[in-house]
């Protein structure tokens, strides 16, 4: 089975036109000794009906966020996705199109990306946003690379409270370049601006902090940024795009580059990807020369009509090759579209209400959960939709028991922070009801 259309008659006519006698002849340039002399060892073909049964069976083994109440966060959240998002992203003119190199045949994608770029500027309070990157970790890393290029300084400082997988990504990239990454410890669940002040120097290209941080708690972003700026370093802020419905935006507290994981903006959890890397920065030629990924710009066509094209392509790999600002080729076009539709659907009021519901429900949950004996908030700083709890005894074992009770109750932090041995983070989105939170509290009571 394949999606091939040529019938035996077609093939005969085509071979005749080509002037060869068999399809095999077309592969004559592949030396015989390099040919695979057997069938590939993969399972035999399946019809659609069989494939669907097969996957129903396999996926039935998973216990997804539809099968258990989900309080998991850590950079991916169970936010509600309005049906209009699926409807628009399901238009095959969007999802089966390629990169909009032929502008006339791609105005739909181009305009949607231009709108996405504008929306990202509105979310971040900054002047320019690119057409998206792979995910949150890529955004942090590319922002750091930008800062290294812009400042021509060798050192990146990053808070330990930034998503550990973003930090790991940055470190992988940095390992091969002439730069160093220093992690600033956050033993109390936040980055102390005084520690930043003592850590920065004229070697510092940038300071990277995240707020709400990986524990869900807020950082003193203005003070951190000020400390960075004092030595001429850039300040890179990793933020939660849903939270800015009520919180100040990166541009409001002085970030030079804002980065985020955009999954919360209408992207399904889908086991971690594809997600959406957001990156916005100052509208400043120093930044524009170094911004990675695609950019859509407005122009006019030969009849003077407003239109959109990919622009500043000379930065990109397919033109600049080894001198490109980044090796990135694909953006996450379809996810950028989802985010644009999501933000349009919720509007300013809806984003505000969503953020506020998350905050209220998270605080209610924290209040109720910490009434359970032995359970306490691990950190004292304010939090948004996620928070770190100290639980009695073995966190992993406790979480396993809560799963049996129907709750994905939280993430055990020890895998990333060995010092936080019996701590978990609990995330509460607008989808969680009081009844579900109360249910979790009861289940916790029964299992500690």
């Amino acid at each position: 089975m394949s999606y091939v259309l040529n019938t035996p008659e077609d093939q005969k006519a085509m071979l005749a036109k080509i002037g060869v006698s068999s399809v095999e002849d077309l592969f004559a340039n592949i030396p015989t000794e390099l040919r695979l002399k057997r069938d590939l060892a993969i399972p035999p073909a399946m019809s659609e009906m069989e494939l669907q049964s097969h996957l129903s069976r396999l996926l039935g083994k998973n216990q997804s966020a539809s099968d258990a109440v989900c309080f998991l966060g850590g950079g991916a959240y169970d936010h509600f996705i309005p049906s209009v998002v699926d409807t628009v992203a399901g238009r095959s003119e969007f999802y089966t199109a390629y990169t909009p190199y032929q502008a006339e045949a791609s105005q739909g994608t181009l305009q949607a990306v231009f709108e996405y770029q504008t929306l990202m500027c509105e979310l971040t309070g900054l002047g320019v946003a690119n057409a998206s990157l792979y995910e949150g970790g890529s955004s942090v890393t590319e922002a750091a690379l930008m800062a290294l290029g812009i400042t021509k300084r060798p050192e990146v400082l990053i808070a330990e409270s930034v998503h550990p997988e973003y930090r790991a990504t940055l470190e992988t990239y940095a390992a091969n370049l002439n730069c160093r990454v220093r992690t600033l410890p956050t033993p109390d669940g936040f980055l102390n601006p005084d520690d930043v002040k003592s850590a920065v120097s004229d070697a510092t290209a940038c300071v990277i902090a995240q707020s709400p941080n990986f524990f869900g708690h807020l950082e003193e972003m203005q003070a951190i940024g000020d400390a960075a700026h004092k030595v001429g370093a850039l300040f890179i802020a990793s933020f939660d795009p849903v939270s800015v419905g009520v919180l100040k935006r990166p541009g409001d507290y002085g970030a030079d580059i804002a980065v985020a994981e955009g999954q919360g903006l209408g992207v399904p959890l889908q086991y971690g990807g594809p997600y959406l890397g957001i990156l916005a920065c100052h509208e400043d030629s120093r930044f524009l020369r170094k911004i990675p990924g695609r950019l859509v710009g407005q122009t006019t066509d030969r009849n003077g009509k407003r239109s959109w094209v990919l622009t500043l392509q000379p930065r990109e790999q397919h033109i600049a090759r080894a001198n490109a600002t980044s090796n990135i080729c694909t953006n996450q076009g379809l996810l950028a579209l989802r985010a644009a539709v999501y933000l349009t659907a919720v509007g300013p009021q809806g984003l505000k209400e969503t953020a506020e519901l998350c905050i209220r429900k998270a605080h209610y949950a924290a209040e109720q959960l910490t009434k359970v004996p032995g359970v306490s908030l691990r950190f004292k700083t304010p939090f948004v939709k996620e928070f770190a709890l100290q639980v009695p005894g073995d966190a992993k074992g406790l979480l396993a028991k809560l799963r049996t009770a129907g709750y994905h109750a939280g993430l055990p932090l020890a895998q990333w922070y060995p010092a936080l041995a019996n701590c978990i983070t609990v995330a509460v989105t607008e989808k969680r009801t009081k009844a579900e939170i109360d249910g979790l509290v009861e289940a916790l009571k029964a299992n500690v």
Partner: protein
Amino acid sequence: QSTELIFELSKSGRRCHRLPECDVPAAKALGELIPQEHLASTPPPLPEVGEIDLIRHYTNLSAQNMSIDTNFYPLGSCTMKYNPKRHERLAAFPGYANLHPLQDDDTTQGMLEILYETQQFLAEISGLPAVSLQPAAGAQGELTALFVAAAYFRDKGETHRKKVLVPDSAHGTNPASAALAGFDTITVKSGTNGLVDLEDLKSKLGDDTAVFMITNPNTLGLFETQIKTITDLLHSKGALVYLDGANMNAILGITRPGDFGADMQHYNVHKTFTGPHGGGGPGSGPIAVRDFLAPYLPAPVVVKDGARFKLDFDMPKSIGRVRSFFGNVGILFRGYCYIRTLGPDGLKQVSEQAVLNANYLRARVTEGFDVPHPGPCMHEFVASARALVRERKITAKDVCKRLLDFGFHAPTVYFPMVVAEALMMEPTETESKETLDAFADTLLKIKAEDPEIVKTAPHTHIVSRPDEVKAAKELKLRWTPAK
């Protein structure tokens, strides 16, 4: 239809999505939960529209795109094959779509089984036994492979290997990735036959060579007949061979990179295995490598432990992560569905028919255009509009724009750079002879058309020849409200 921006449709007070009332106690003001200094005075100035506005806007925008589902899309090097609808249905199953990336392995056994099998399939198809599904796109796959190579050489103490050789016909991502991985890029020339110039390669190869990045079949659609000689040569110098897997659609089940000497390769799951391109992404760029490189792969990989699958993070030599979470699983999932649908016979048939279609289209196109390199080609070929420029002042770009008027997406143009006025065409196996004939007939017709019509094309699209210079000069990357 309207081409207003969504911001221009906004009117204060309109709403689409609504939230429920708060069902937990809400007596406290927000400022009592979050210190005032963190709070904004107003939410961001997002557009305010009704649901009908939103749907009409985006539905009408979608109609301004060409796409595989509406048009033949022979974009060379992009493998714009048909994206099966069953994949979209299956990827929406809640058991997949609502799976959180940080769930415990006990709750994701079905998912892990799918990913484990995907690793195995990709290893088998490439002949390279160790696979990482983590890279988010082809370019990141390349980069990850180069990180792996760098780590390997570091581990061996061969840090003097600072050079990566790249043919002049390579994709731009190759040198860009090499630079980002800290290597110096050296370009290797192509011969007049379109293949790697072996003498030039030899002259540039040295003890400081880390990796040779080769695309095979190459971007001219030609199989590097001396590939084994090349890879042996590299190995004799202790260097590694990296295969750019963008063109895997030509060789599935026919020849394997591992068998012709590649040590590493990436896949474009969104090309070869039908992840929809999404208007420019998401992609997915897993890599496969030889056993001795396996320890350096990004963690985690999926392993089977008895009957149980698990994410294995215990890889002390790993280069680390190249992204958060497992990978672009949505695209891998579709690739898995595709491979299970086709089976071994189907996959081989893909390459056979992709190559047949390319050669047939090549034969038709040569009726009116130069195709500088001799056939047979593999899954794609590069024609040149040189003669047309000379004789009728019609450029490759003009031809492309005029094709749009007839309902065909344009070929890839001006790439690879080794061919003047290049028109790179990849029909894929999912197109019919009728479609190829209609396209070729149109190309030949355009060649004979009034040049004025061709040079001012397209005439039937919503815009025509947007000014790219102006776009870059009068940079406008976002909408701003009129004063």
